[in-house]
């Protein structure tokens, strides 16, 4: 059951119906109760269709940040039969906003992968410890250290993206946030192993891309990915933080938008009502899709893989050039 206090305004009517249905189901039911449940289920279905057919881009942003949305480790614990977390950048400290380690992917015949992920914390204490999923340079450098490890041992990389962005703070700047991100972009572009990235929540700009250069980019349907947050965009271009809905719409940051811009390879349908309605189903959807892409990529010769990745990024961008 979803706590209605933790649900978004627009999904609350649905959540209340669903909770009512569950309550009724728990009662030992006669025929009358069963009929009542069927009626409510039809109403819930209709509400779900109505709400989710008409979601605005800003509502999708809110869903991508839903307090109950599954975070990376909720996926890892379901998608992977084994996971050995590896810590630290060997230079400064371990950044818990990024989780990384060796894993076996169930849907890919339990084969070995290197997993990289942003991890938001659930509850105040963990959220603070993980800096709300906003990495500092040492987080990106931990990821880079393990990318090199993956390259040496020929382990494909799976990245789960979910961050508001790289942390903007004095310490992060002192230790070279820009350089840490930049280096990962270059390294990932040349890694001789398949890379599949999936945006499972928020794809916050360079902070997301820094573990997200890949051969295949997947996005859950209510996740978002953008060059700047709608809040940031609204305050710069509209000079008004309140214009987030316009900013979100103008920036074309939903999974469908990114698919039509050619940036995303596959949009993954979420369980009815969104990923937070069923962690198991969401993890199954992501795991199966990642495995399917890994199967395709792992048969490519290394050169073909790298040329393909280069060509993919090289082709991104729209401009005009007169023919000479």
């Amino acid at each position, binding site marked *: 059951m979803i706590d209605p206090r933790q649900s978004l305004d627009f999904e609350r009517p649905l959540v209340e119906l669903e909770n009512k249905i569950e309550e009724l189901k728990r009662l030992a039911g006669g025929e009358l109760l069963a009929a009542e449940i069927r009626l409510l289920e039809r109403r819930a279905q209709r509400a779900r269709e109505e709400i989710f057919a008409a979601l605005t881009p800003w509502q999708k942003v809110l869903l991508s940040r839903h307090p109950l949305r599954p975070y990376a480790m909720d996926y890892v614990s379901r998608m992977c039969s084994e996971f050995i977390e590896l810590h630290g950048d060997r230079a400064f400290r371990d950044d818990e906003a990024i989780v990384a380690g060796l894993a076996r992917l169930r849907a890919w015949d339990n084969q070995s992968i290197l997993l990289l992920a942003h991890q938001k914390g659930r509850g105040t204490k963990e959220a603070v410890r993980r800096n709300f999923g906003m990495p500092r340079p040492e987080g990106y450098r931990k990821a880079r250290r393990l990318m090199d490890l993956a390259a040496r041992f020929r382990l494909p990389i799976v990245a789960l993206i979910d961050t508001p962005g*790289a*942390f*903007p*703070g*004095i310490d*992060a*700047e*002192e*230790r*070279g*946030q*820009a*350089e840490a*991100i*930049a*280096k990962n*972009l*270059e*390294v990932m*572009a*040349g890694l001789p192993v398949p890379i599949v990235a999936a945006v499972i929540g928020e794809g916050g*700009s*360079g902070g997301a*891309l*820094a573990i997200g*250069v890949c051969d295949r980019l997947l996005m859950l349907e209510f996740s978002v*990915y*953008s*060059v*700047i947050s709608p809040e*940031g*965009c609204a305050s*710069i*271009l*509209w000079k008004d933080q309140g214009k987030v809905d*316009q900013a979100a719409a*103008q*920036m*074309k*940051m939903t999974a469908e*938008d*990114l698919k039509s*811009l050619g*940036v995303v390879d596959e949009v993954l349908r979420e369980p009815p009502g969104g990923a937070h309605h069923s962690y198991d189903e969401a993890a199954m959807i992501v795991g199966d899709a990642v495995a399917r892409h890994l199967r395709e990529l792992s048969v490519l010769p290394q050169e073909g893989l790298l040329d393909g*990745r*280069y060509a993919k*990024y*090289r082709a*991104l*961008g*729209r*401009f*005009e*050039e*007169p023919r*000479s």
Partner: protein
Amino acid sequence: MSWWSRKNKATELSSEKRSVPSGLFQMCEGCGSTLDSQLIEAAYMCCPQCGHHFTLPTEDRLRLLLDEGTAVEHDAELSPVDPLGFRDSKTYADRLSALKKKTGQRDAFRSFMGHIDGVAVSFGVFQFEFMGGSMGSVVGEKIARLYERAREHRCPAVVLSASGGARMQEGILSLMQMAKTSAALGRLRGAGLPYISVLLNPTTGGVAASFAMLGDIIIAEPGAMVGFAGPRVIEQTIRQKLPPGFQRAEFLLEHGMIDAIVPRAELKSWLATTLRLLQKQPAPPPPAASRSSSFPSLPKVSLT
């Protein structure tokens, strides 16, 4: 024949702008003294009193760094489009055409092949006055091509950055330019060719977080503001004032993020010397009597 081989409107525009009538004075942001604008201009927009570096127009930048008659502009015909149909208070399309009219340029970056004190380079410079030097598809494409051209001609790449970061109006495509340019740079590095990144004031956001901080050698002009997040964003996040000098070139040098701070007057010879050393090329013959580390005088060439 113009100083470089592609003649366009911008060269004429800025040649008009350049001639500041005598008797104009401006205050130096560095030391507060009131100075004759002509004196500042003669010193390539540096304060003769304290050395404060003002913004240098691109035309002067080219004149300062590239050997006369060697520069050929590339990819100048690339024009931005409006892939998202973006609109805030104005449409992106309108902003672009207004800027084209105002600056004579199509976008925020210019690419050249040329020589720096006799060293052949694939060279590019941001135009901050065009939407804050922001990187969209055109800028990203030009930079990727600049690295590819260096690889093709087996020469070093030199990029001078001055940018607020990725261009919001092209959305995710702007973000992807970070990956695209970094990938192209990786291939240049793989080919064993050097790349020097020069950070001008300011270099932040997606440009800092990609090729600008990826130089084999990274240098900055004195006082240049360089960082991932802009100072305002950081102040809002941590809710405290930033220390003086934060994110300036001197701060970056102290924290080990750049190789050197190079004053404008020495930039050309510094680049040429370093590129020769890196490529194991012999040092040039001993300097002629007239040669010094100070600025070359502004050539009195007509730009038409």
